[in-house]
């Protein structure tokens, strides 16, 4: 009895551990190169050249930046709460990394007659999990701002937290109309329903728009980067942070961008579906493994497009004022999301009868 209880499916265990390591490593590397891409794209859009000294095309710049951040003096303000001060960036990073667990990166690999799902956990409440973890991200901001024991940090943290909470509402409402179509919360099921280019963007354009705007707000990206406002207010909630603690905050933002790109691609752009190709037929023709890899490549291509979009928007649209932000969130996006929900429900009912 004891033996059966403790018996682990070791292949599954090792498979998942390897997958987790790969995905965490990948999201960190992608986040690193997002910083490079951000600077390069910003430079190109402003007719500059961008980083070009460290390595070919400045490709080693993120390493140099990381090294710099590690070398800097670590300052913990004397009047701050030391435990919370250290917990803040840790929590921000943790929540940023945790979301990737439910994203299906590709269909499955077939090794030795076994199927290895390229997804860490196919939770049947996948989206709920994403929302739960993302809303925990507020704690990173809030605790960091509070523990600094600085009025400006606290103000910025409250500003950021209220923004994130407000936009989470509209985000959830925009998702509901999508869920009414899919009938499932599992991200894998949602992707499987979108095979053969039946992407949900075609069914839910307004819902996608709301989701997009809200994910900008959730990631604290520029039209909504009130909690940071790097260029004029102050450094925001991480005003008192230095060295790698600051690095963790900045880094978690980029990991968030990566993950929310992945979630958007999954929900609205067919996830790992190869566009304009019948994946199942291709798998019959080529075998499952090459198709699975091609699907993963397609998924990452979609993610990269979204990341580029994030950066593009950042260097185009100026920041909202706080009242504009709240007005947009509460008076426009939420009513629009509810309206979208009603229209979607109405159309679904109409089709049933």
């Amino acid at each position, binding site marked *: 009895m004891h033996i059966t209880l403790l018996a682990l499916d070791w292949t599954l265990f090792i498979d998942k551990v390897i997958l987790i390591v790969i995905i965490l490593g990948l999201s960190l590397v992608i986040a690193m190169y997002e910083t490079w891409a951000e600077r390069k*794209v910003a430079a*190109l*859009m402003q*007719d500059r*050249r961008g980083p*070009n000294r460290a390595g070919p095309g400045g490709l080693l710049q993120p390493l140099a930046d990381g090294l710099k951040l590690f070398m800097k003096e670590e300052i913990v303000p004397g009047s701050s709460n030391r435990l919370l001060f250290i917990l803040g960036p840790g929590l921000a990073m943790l929540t940023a990394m945790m979301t990737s667990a439910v994203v299906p990166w590709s269909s499955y690999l077939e090794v030795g007659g076994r199927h290895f799902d390229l997804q860490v956990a196919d939770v049947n409440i996948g989206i709920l999990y994403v929302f739960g973890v993302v809303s925990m991200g507020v704690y990173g901001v809030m605790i960091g701002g509070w523990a600094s024991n600085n009025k400006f940090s606290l103000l910025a943290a409250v500003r950021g937290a209220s923004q994130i909470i407000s936009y989470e509402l509209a985000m959830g409402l925009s998702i509901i109309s999508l869920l009414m179509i899919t009938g499932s919360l599992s991200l894998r099921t949602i992707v499987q329903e979108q095979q053969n280019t039946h992407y949900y963007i075609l069914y839910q354009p307004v819902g996608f728009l709301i989701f997009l705007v809200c994910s900008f707000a959730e990631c604290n990206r520029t039209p909504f980067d009130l909690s940071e406002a790097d260029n004029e207010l102050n450094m925001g909630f991480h005003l008192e942070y230095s060295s790698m603690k600051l690095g963790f905050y900045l880094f978690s933002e980029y990991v968030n961008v990566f993950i929310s790109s992945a979630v958007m691609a999954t929900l609205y752009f067919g996830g790992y579906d190869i566009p304009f190709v019948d994946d199942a037929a291709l798998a019959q023709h080529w075998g499952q493994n090459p198709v699975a890899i091609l699907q993963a490549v397609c998924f990452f291509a979609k993610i990269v497009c979204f990341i580029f979009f994030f950066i*593009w*928007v950042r*260097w*185009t649209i100026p920041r909202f004022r706080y009242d504009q932000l709240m007005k947009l969130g509460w008076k426009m996006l939420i009513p629009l999301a509810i309206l979208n929900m009603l229209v979607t429900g109405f159309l679904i009912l109409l089709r049933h009868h």
Partner: protein
Amino acid sequence: MQPLTSKAKVVDRRPMNMWERMYLPAIAKGMSITFGHMFKKRPTVNYPEKTRPFSPVFRGLHVLNRDEEGRERCTACGLCAVACPAEAITMEGAERLPSEEGLYREEKYAAKYEINMLRCIFCGLCEEACPKDAIYLSETFAPSNYTRKGFIYGKEELLIPDPKTDPEAFARARGEHGQEAPAVKTNSQMR
């Protein structure tokens, strides 16, 4: 009132209509502008690797010239130091020994010749004052150093390489062998 220029533009203060209040068309327009800029030609010059061409009258760091046989032209007359409004030039003269005729053109030469590049205002008056065509302002500029002392250039830094022993370096210092205009203006160009 009569407008002063034809550039006056009437500001439209009408309330925005529904289409404009959606902001999305304006956002799309802005995004297309920034996207278009990605493919524009960049005006930046990759500076240390590439430089913009200077005009031949550019006044950069000084060079002490030699004649065709590689002899120093300077006779330490001190006219450049007198002409210098920033008092950047100091020198000490010495008498040429009989064995040194291949080194110095005149009987008197500058044993020590120093220009303080921090004082120098690169006006070029020393160049104009020199009766022997010994000092010229080159096209090299932007010296950098860790100490103030390093900005006081002595003869080692100022003298042009010998055309006899090191003709290549001499030509390079004069800006021949290449794309750019001469670094040091020669007599024939001045006249």
